[in-house]
């Protein structure tokens, strides 16, 4: 029997809304518009792993342009002034923020990793032995952004009794 995961699309969507309100769109003028398309393309992604009471990854993926816009919002810069280092930093922090909040909804005893950033498309091969169990997929000012949750297929030990 698999561990019951209490985090669903609505929870993820609520977290994403808070991130937009806090950092990416404080004026409330350019929200993430849902597409519900889990196959939408991405060019860069970041992830944090969670281990312990639940094992898997939280992945933030987007186009380069959306990542530049996010970094620009965090750093108060124009998107085209953002360098790769800042891009990585902001992508990592976004995965960290969502991952930390997901972890808080999981059974006690989970550990959050430091973020990993890859300036290349998200690919299933990056998360071997996992399956996507939840996600929020949308367009931000015409650019794809997604936040997804990948559970380890071996994650069947806790909560079984």
């Amino acid at each position, binding site marked *: 029997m698999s561990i019951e995961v209490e985090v669903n699309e609505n929870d993820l969507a609520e977290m994403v809304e808070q991130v937009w*309100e806090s950092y990416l769109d404080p004026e409330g003028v350019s929200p993430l518009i849902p597409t519900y398309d889990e196959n939408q393309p991405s060019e860069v992604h970041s992830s944090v792993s969670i281990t312990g009471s639940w094992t898997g990854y939280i992945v933030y993926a987007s186009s380069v342009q959306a990542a530049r816009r996010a970094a620009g919002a*965090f750093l108060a810069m124009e998107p085209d002034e953002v360098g790769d280092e800042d891009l990585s930093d902001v992508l990592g922090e976004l995965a960290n923020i969502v991952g930390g909040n997901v972890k808080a909804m999981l059974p006690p005893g989970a550990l959050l990793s430091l973020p990993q950033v890859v300036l290349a498309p998200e690919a299933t091969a990056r998360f071997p032995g996992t399956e996507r169990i939840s996600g929020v997929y949308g367009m931000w000012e015409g650019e794809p952004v997604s936040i997804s949750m990948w559970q380890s297929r071996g994650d069947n030990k806790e909560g079984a009794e």
Partner: protein
Amino acid sequence: MTPMRAMVIDDSRAMRMILKRIVTKLNFEAVEAGDGKEALDLLHAMTEVPELALIDWNMPNMNGLEFVTHARADPRLREMTLVMVTTESEQSQIVRALAAGAHEYVIKPFTEGAMIEKLALLGLVPTGANS
């Protein structure tokens, strides 16, 4: 009047920028560190200790909880107000941080208004500084 000082401790430059923008707006002079160890090194080199430290939890080298524990054990740093600013939002983690000596806890993501309210609660900025 001498401005108050704040140390922003976070491994994300972007998050340090956001926090610096907020405290600078509140007339703090801000210094930054990328992890707990760098923060302690800077603090030991300073002649005057900042009144406030905003501290991330998950950082390389020395995490925020370890920093709080070290800071609380150092008589020179005892007057510094310590605020955890982190994604670690489980009740048990909050209790651990407060037990180690943190004064307040702000969960990411936070709005500027929410951060200012916390600092007002701690008496570090006037009530209503957010309006």
